[in-house]
Structure formats: C-alpha cells, structure tokens
C-alpha cells in the first residue's frame, strides 16, 4: 500500500500526472474510486481484494478527463480495457499511466501501450475455472430453457442502464436506445424492451468485452449479464481465435471487414 501511495505522491509532485484514479475506503468494508489530485491526498489510496471496480470506466468520463493526465490503478481487467479502448481509437498512447500493484504491494508503472501489452500477455486472460463452470451449466441448457432463463432474468430489468454506465466499453455518446428516428429499442422496461435492450448491448460488446464483470456487479436486480458476455467471449475465441483487450492495435472479430472473407454473405 505504501508503495502505491509513494508512487502517487511522486507522480503528482513531479506533475507527471494531474490525477491518480485509484481505490479508497468506501461504505463499510467496500472500496470506491478516489481521484487523488495532490500528493497530500495520496494517503487515501488503498489496495486489497475488495478493489474490484474497473476504473478504466473513468477514462471515458469527460469530467474526469478534464482533470488532466491520469494514472490509473489497474487490476488485470483494467489493463485489457485500456488496450481495447486504444484499439478502438478512444485513447492515445502516453495519454495515461497504469499503476499495477502486485500481491506483495509492489507497484509496476506501465507508461506505454507497448508496456501494457507486454504485461497483459503474462496475465491469465482466459475465463477463470469458476467462470467456465458457470458457463458450462448454461451451455447444457436447451434453446427453450435458455429462452426461459433470460426471460425470467430480464423480467426484472428496470432499464436503469447501470450496466451501460458501469461498462468502460459502453462509451457511445449516443446509445442506440437513445435513437428514436427510428426507435430501434423500445424505451419501456416491458418484456420486449428489456429483451431487446439486453441482447443489443451484449451483441454490441461481442468481440469487445474484456470480462471485468462490472455490468453484473452494477445491476441492482442481480441479472447475470456477465454470462451473456462470457458466452460471446467463448464463441468469439472458438470461431475467430481472438481475444479482446490484448493489443493496442487489433482487428476486431465482429467489426473488421476483409474482401477475402471466408463467408459469402458479407461480400
């Protein structure tokens, strides 16, 4: 912890960055995002297993960007998000620093996309054993069962869009649900509106989601949105041998057109 705080003090004092976005004390035992803008505040930084939010979501928030160059305390998913955002031309190299604390508390500073790529390949970026187990349970369901499964879960959806807000890759300034000429997705949180909203969001994240799980954690009514995304991650890996968030320049499985595509329908 002291390494992280010292690193933040050093960066802020040297004006190498204007803000360190990290974790601090939250309600009860929880942790929350803190925005450290002076060396004197660096003592608020914490790092432990309760730090789970993917702070890369703040890379796309105008009010946070406005603060200046950012150092971001990064868990593995945060690093994948940075690379994915880079590959989608949303952030530029050298625009930010990543601070990666390890189990011992030592902090690695990654200043370039190349450095982040080199770090990310050393991580285990696959679904965890527990995630694979949960996905297998889902996959053994038949189509009808799956439909019922999602209808039941989506029946609780409030359309509060917490999933979208918490997702660092849902950065569109105008989301499809906000387009009403034509109205692609019904606004009301009724069965059809909820089904179309959640499926649309999952499809827009296919080949892009880096599996941080913040959508599910954000959902106030406990819809297992991560399952949709993990299913798509697994499909994209199987069919395209592609994993998102691994490189700052990448062809995306679901949004890259090649004239010599193997499929006929796309030509």
């Amino acid at each position, binding site marked *: 912890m002291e390494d992280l705080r010292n690193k933040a003090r050093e960066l802020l004092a040297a004006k190498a960055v204007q803000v360190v976005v990290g974790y601090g004390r939250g309600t009860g035992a929880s942790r929350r*995002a803190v925005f450290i803008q002076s060396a004197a505040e660096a003592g608020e930084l914490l790092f432990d297993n309760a730090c789970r939010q993917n702070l890369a979501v703040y890379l796309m*928030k105008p009010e946070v960007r406005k603060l200046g160059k950012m150092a971001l305390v990064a868990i593995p998913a945060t690093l994948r998000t940075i690379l994915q955002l880079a590959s989608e031309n949303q952030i530029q190299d050298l625009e930010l620093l990543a601070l990666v604390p390890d189990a011992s508390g030592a902090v690695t500073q990654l200043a370039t996309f190349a450095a982040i790529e080199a770090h990310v390949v050393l991580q285990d970026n696959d679904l965890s054993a527990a995630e694979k187990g949960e996905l297998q349970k889902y996959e053994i369901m038949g189509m009808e069962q799956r439909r019922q499964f999602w209808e039941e879960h989506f029946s*609780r959806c409030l359309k509060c*869009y917490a999933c979208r*807000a918490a997702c660092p890759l849902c950065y569109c300034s105008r989301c499809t649900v906000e387009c009403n000429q034509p109205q692609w997705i*019904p606004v*009301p949180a*009724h069965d059809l509106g909820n089904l179309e909203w959640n499926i649309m969001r999952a499809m827009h994240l296919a080949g892009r989601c880096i599996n941080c799980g*913040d959508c599910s954690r954000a959902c106030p009514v*406990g819809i297992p949105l991560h399952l949709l995304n993990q299913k798509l991650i697994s499909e994209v890996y199987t069919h395209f041998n592609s994993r998102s968030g691994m490189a700052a320049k990448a062809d995306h499985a679901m949004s890259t057109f090649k004239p010599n595509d193997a499929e006929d329908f796309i030509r």
Partner: protein
Amino acid sequence: MAIETTSIKRETLEKLFSNWLSEGKRILAPKKLGDHVDFALVGSLAEVSLDQVQTVQSPKIAVFPRVEELLAFQSTDGNVQLRERDLAVLPETVIFGLRPCDAAAFASLKAIFDWDTPDKLFSARLEKITVVGLSCSRADEYCFCTSVGGGPGAAAGSDILLTDMGREDFLLEIISEKGRQAVRSVSAGLQPDAAMDKESRLARVTPAFTVEKISSVLAALFDDASFWEKQSLRCLGCGACAYVCPTCACFDIQDEGGASGKRLRCWDSCGFGLFTLHTSGHNPRPLQSQRWRQRLMHKFSYMPERQSVLGCVGCGRCSRACPVDMNMVEHMRAVAEAKP
C-alpha cells in the same frame, strides 16, 4: 383517529392473510428471490421475508409501476378514438411488511402526482392500497430515516404498523380507518396491548444531519460548481438510484404501435444525460455534476419549498444500489458542512 394499540399472534396474522386473499385483495410483500429480497405478490405469511434491512426495490411499484398504460388509441381514416383505463379494475392491494420509511414515502409521491392536476391513475391506485408497515429491528450504515423526520418505528403513512416482539407476537398499531377495516375480520383475535415495550425492539439509527441545516445551505450552494464536481466525480450517471427510490416520480411518456396502440408511462431519471436534452440539441444540464445537484436539490430544496414535503425518507436504497458507492448520508453531511 387516535392510534389504537393491540397485539396479534403470528397465527392470527396468518389467518388475516387468508382473509385478505379471500376478500380478493392482492398482497405485495418482501419475498426472497434468489439472493436478494424484493416486493412480490405472496399467498401466505410464510412466503414473506421479514428480517432483511431493506428490499432492493421500493413499494412505489404498487402505485407507480415501472411501465403502465395510460390510454389506448385507434386511428381510423383520421378519426382518433381514445380508450382510457378502467380504474375500477385496478386491484385492491395490501402492501405488507414495508418499512416505516417506505410508508412515509407515499406522501411524497402523492404530493407530486396531486400537484396542480391530480393524476387519476395514481390516485386510484393509492386509494386501493392498504399499508401494513413493519418496524425495523435492524438498520445498516445506509439508513438515515431519523435525519429526515422518520424513525424505525414511525407510524406516518402506515394504516397498520406491526412491530415484531419476538416469540410469535406482534405489536399491532391501528393508525387509520382503512387499517381498522383491514383487521376487522380478526378483531376477536387481537389481544389488548400487554405493556409491550416497542422501543426496546427498534433499531438505533443515529441522526447524521438536520433538514434545517441542509435547507439553509443548499440554496446558496447551487452555484458552487466545484463542490458539485467534487461530490459527483465518481457518479456514472445511471438511473439505479432513482429507480429504487421510493419517492422518485419522474416519468417519460412513450407511444407504442402505429395507427392503433398504447400510450405508456415509464420511469425516467434526472441522472441520465438524455433527461433534459432539448430537441434543438441544447442540454441545460450537460454535466453529471449538474445532474447530481439536481437530484439533491429536488429532494431537499424544491420539494420542501413547493410541496411542503421532503423528497427523501432515508431508506438508503440509492446508496445500496449505487454501482460506485455514492453514499447519500455522506453526501448530505458534506452539504451540511459546506461553506458556500
């Protein structure tokens, strides 16, 4: 009417449940659904979850559902026919086991829906609910009812208030005529209050701020952009807080269908950027900090000024539901301590 205090055995309460159901009333109560507790229709007292601090959603769904039809329309050769809702078919509903904060929230909703032109649909639903509150024996770090005029055993808003006295005994306070009617079928089974010590069963919720202090600071704080920016930097602008809030009443109107269709009322939230976006493209609240300010100002300044009622009952749901831990008690404390 004066509050009438009696006591009731759990088995009599069970009988009351079946009486309500046979009278054709629906019972909406906290129910364990997977790993969370939320309001759902129940068929017996056994289905009701009584020991959670709070449900995820608020019981406002009984009077202000997340989607509801306002009217149906049919256009034939330029003639538009409207079909209004038949208010008579709205179900009589007993809301059972809601907390005193939630019971108090109906007054805030009513103040909004009755403002200027009373909302017929809302009023019809409100008339058909019977509110059976349950005092809180536990609170958590998100609760702040005592800072906004409520309390873990407060009667306001309930028709009947129960307090679990342990050993299958409940203290039963009859607060309104509606409440008296609701327990009439078991009146023989109501015991006189045997000096039950209600206070000893209640959660302790320490006041964190005073409404007087908040109101005196808020108006002057409106223009302090840096205060609101600092307060809302981690807010991501979703609608979770508004949708679980028992008093948030903003809605959007959507027409569905072509020549023949329905006009629907759907929840909306001032946290969304789209909420105030004008057709011209201009947005008077382009920043999340302004939207966060609006949320607090509306509840703690505009509603008390215009409707003489607070827009917050201290249930803490907004803070529990927030994906980034925006904790309302802390924010209100910061307002109280601000030097505008």
